[in-house]
């Protein structure tokens, strides 16, 4: 007989392997890949391949430099690459996708020890880093099927979350199929669901996470009075709930832990969507909950069979209270910032007063008007200057990230003499540029209704050049001016 081998039991192992699991995730991502290429054109494939190739390369290089076993064959880097690509707009410059891959693999994954050790989802963290670094390119959404037409304004569109409640909102069927603006892999609910069902059937993911996550968003949408069906099919929710919140390394182990985690993700998502300055909150919600995972794991341990009974005070109450306190602090912080940025309807804020004084000079007084009659104009307050020559109208049109509070000063001929933005929550460095004089000076001296058109195409009296990459914000501002002008027509009697 040969020399016998000895090993520790068990001597039989299942067919499971990390590579097989990652391969299953890749297979589950295929339907969304096909959908992305149909909806946004073949550039979707180019972005995806760029991300996958750079993620795998970065993984290979970091492991090599750190003199550790190479792990690219476990396919986890490829999964990160695909997920990152799916979280990017199809129009993203490729070098930004490479930068994102670098952050995902090198900074978030490998510097923390590689697969299974990262505390936050690499793809999500990379997306958030790109979002805050390159807000413009990261929020430039391609219109579905833009690649088939050749018109001028086909590239920039808004995602349904921005259009929520407006007539531009796509129908349910379009949302379900993914015919809408958004990141390249997040739009098709149908394709993502097929992938999710495959993963559940293959027992790669536990269905409790996506169901709780999506269910929480649905429930809170009902409570907040927004369209729940549209909410769950918009933004990155399906992609996040099925593929990101179920990431092993960054989600709790036990079923109870997964429920707590998904509840947190859902709640934060809807809070950010409703009150935050970004229209989408899935990435931030998951990222934030990732950081809480060790605490959730600690608080949701299972009782061993026949093990000592849990000590209620120490093992259950304490972690739950800790979690509740953290949740409370976060939500209070959110509500606090929300209230800070929200315009106070009853009193005139300091900003408004300052803007009015600036536009009308000192000594202006408020003009009474029938608020109900001007509801459509979103008219908040009206001021008259000391000599009775000008009116300053405070209006709050809808912008990209919420209402814009602005003051429009009009002289008795109906000519705009100046504008000011007193409060806004537009995308920093992009939509927020409506506050700049560069943009606002286009309005001075204009009479009558105005239209904002794509940057660089304005011609004629009634047209305004929109800010590049911030058409929605520009349109919102112009809409405010028009509303003020319309209200002025009815209120100009107050002038002497």
């Amino acid at each position: 007989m040969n020399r016998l081998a000895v090993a520790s039991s068990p001597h039989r192992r299942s067919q499971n392997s990390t590579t097989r699991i990652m391969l299953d995730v890749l297979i589950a991502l295929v339907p969304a890949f096909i959908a992305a290429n149909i909806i946004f054109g073949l550039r979707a494939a180019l972005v995806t391949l760029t991300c996958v190739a750079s993620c795998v390369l970065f993984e290979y290089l970091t492991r090599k430099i750190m003199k550790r076993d190479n792990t690219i064959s476990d396919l986890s880097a490829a999964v990160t690459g695909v997920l990152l690509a799916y979280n990017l707009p199809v129009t993203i410059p490729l070098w930004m996708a490479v930068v994102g891959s670098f952050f995902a693999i090198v900074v978030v994954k490998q510097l923390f020890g590689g697969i299974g050790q990262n505390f936050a989802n690499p793809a999500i963290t990379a997306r958030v880093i790109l979002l805050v670094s390159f807000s413009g390119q990261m929020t430039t959404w391609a219109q579905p099927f833009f690649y088939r037409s050749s018109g001028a304004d086909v590239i920039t569109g808004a995602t349904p979350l921005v259009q929520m409640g407006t007539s531009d909102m796509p129908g349910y069927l379009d949302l379900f199929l993914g015919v809408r603006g958004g990141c390249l892999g997040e739009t098709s609910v149908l394709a993502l669901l097929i992938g999710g069902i495959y993963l559940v059937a293959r027992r790669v993911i536990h269905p409790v996470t996506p169901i709780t996550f999506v269910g929480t968003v649905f429930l809170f949408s009902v409570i907040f009075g927004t369209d729940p069906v549209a909410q769950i099919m918009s933004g990155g929710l399906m992609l996040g709930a099925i593929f990101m919140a179920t990431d092993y390394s960054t989600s709790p182990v036990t079923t109870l832990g997964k429920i707590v985690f998904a509840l947190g993700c859902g709640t934060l998502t809807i809070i950010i969507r409703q009150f935050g300055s970004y229209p989408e909150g899935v990435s931030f919600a998951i990222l934030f909950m990732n950081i809480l995972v060790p605490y959730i794991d600690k608080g949701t341990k299972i009782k061993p069979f026949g093990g000592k009974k849990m000590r209620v005070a120490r093992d259950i109450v304490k972690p739950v209270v800790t979690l509740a306190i953290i949740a409370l602090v976060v939500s209070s912080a959110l509500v606090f910032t929300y209230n800070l940025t929200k315009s106070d309807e009853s009193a005139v804020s300091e900003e408004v007063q300052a803007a009015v004084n600036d536009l009308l000079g000192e000594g202006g007084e408020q003009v009474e008007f029938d608020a109900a009659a001007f509801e459509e104009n979103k008219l908040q307050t009206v001021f008259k200057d000391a000599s009775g020559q000008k009116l300053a109208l405070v209006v709050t049109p809808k912008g990209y990230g919420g209402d814009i509070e602005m003051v429009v000063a009009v002289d008795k001929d109906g000519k705009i003499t100046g504008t000011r933005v007193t409060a806004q929550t537009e995308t920093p460095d992009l939509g927020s540029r409506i506050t700049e004089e560069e943009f606002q000076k286009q309005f001075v001296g204009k009479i009558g209704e105005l239209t904002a058109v794509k940057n660089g195409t304005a011609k004629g009296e009634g047209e305004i050049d929109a800010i590049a990459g911030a058409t929605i914000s520009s349109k919102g501002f112009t809409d405010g001016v028009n509303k003020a002008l319309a209200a002025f027509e009815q209120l100009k009697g107050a002038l002497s």
Partner: protein
Amino acid sequence: MSVSKSRRKLRGVFLRHDKHTQEMETVRLPMPAAVKLPMLQHMGKPCRPLVKKGDLVKVGQKIGDCDELFSVPVHASVSGEVAELQEYTAVGGAVTQAVVIRPDGEQAVSEEIAPPTVTDRESFLKAVRESGLAGMGGAGFPAHVKLGYKDVNRLDTLVINAAECEPYITSDYRECLEHTADVIEGIQAVKKWLRIDNAYIGVEDDKPAAIRALDEAAAGDSGIQVVKLHSKYPQGAEKVIIYTATGRVVEDGKLPADHGVLVMNVSSVAFLARYLKTGMPFISRRLTVDGPVVRKPQNVEVPLGTPIGEVLRFCDTDEEAVKMILMGGPMMGVCVYDPETPVIKNNNAVLAFDQKNAQVPKTTACIRCGKCVYVCPMNLMPAALEKAYDSKNAAALTAMSVNLCMNCGCCSYICPAKRNLAQKNQLAKAYLKEQKQK
């Protein structure tokens, strides 16, 4: 009484059964050239040899004994001459003496053999000890210690373990079919002398023939009930079968008897019945011989002390291809490093694997998938325990009840990263023990 079905479920894994030898009658092994009987074949203290080189011994003659409670005597499995007393290192590492007997082929039965006189609990326990019985299911716990649980009034339930959840092994199944009456008689004896009211025979639902046979044989006794168990590994683990058959949960650090339950292996209880009738002690047992390189897998009745290599040869094993030999099933079996290793009381199977099946997979990093948690019948968290052990965190190991681990191997089996989680738990248990002694 009719067969009841257990609806209670614990976590576990579904394994390929590979019970190729299920329908094969047990055959007898021809007399081996020599038998080596270690003085320690069970959990507990080793025996002292009662014979010396050159002595002639007969079948059933006591050749080793010990005064300690936690020990059972060893009997000669063949008649013949004591060739030598040698030092023997058991697979687990314990060094004891072993008596080597060269059989004369006569198989003359010792004059000591006579049915024991049992009149009460005391004499019953004494007979159990003299029979040399140590649990035949795998752990090899001395039977008289288990049955001699001090608080006799607390015992109310006997669970007979016929689950046989490990792949390949069918030796208990064959016992159920070939010696059905002995099983029932053994149960009745234990119930009578220990004044236990209820007995449950737990059998996995993939063995309908055994369930039918046992149910028919127990028909006249309302105190014996056959329980059909879910066919999921590790159904035959002591704490698992107690829960699935009776609903009782054995607490950490307590014995099943503290909860009123005794668990006995089905072959053990049948052996006991035969011993009470004939007085022939534990000298041979049935082994399932199987594995990818065994060309003639079968159940073999083998005298204790027979070298495993001889058993494999009898079953036409491809000796050139053998790379790993297991005593026991693939999930909990122990590797044998020498084909001369003798068969002892708690062996229920000998499995032989080739190079392909003996390969130890490469371990990769834990991806926190949690599968080990979902399959642990004891609700432990193996991945977290591994981390705690690697950082030698005794407090965390205790807090997470690592001592509940019974080494069933489900966690290592399911792990996609092929981590040796079950092994780490055993190391952790040893580490805790060591810390305690300091």
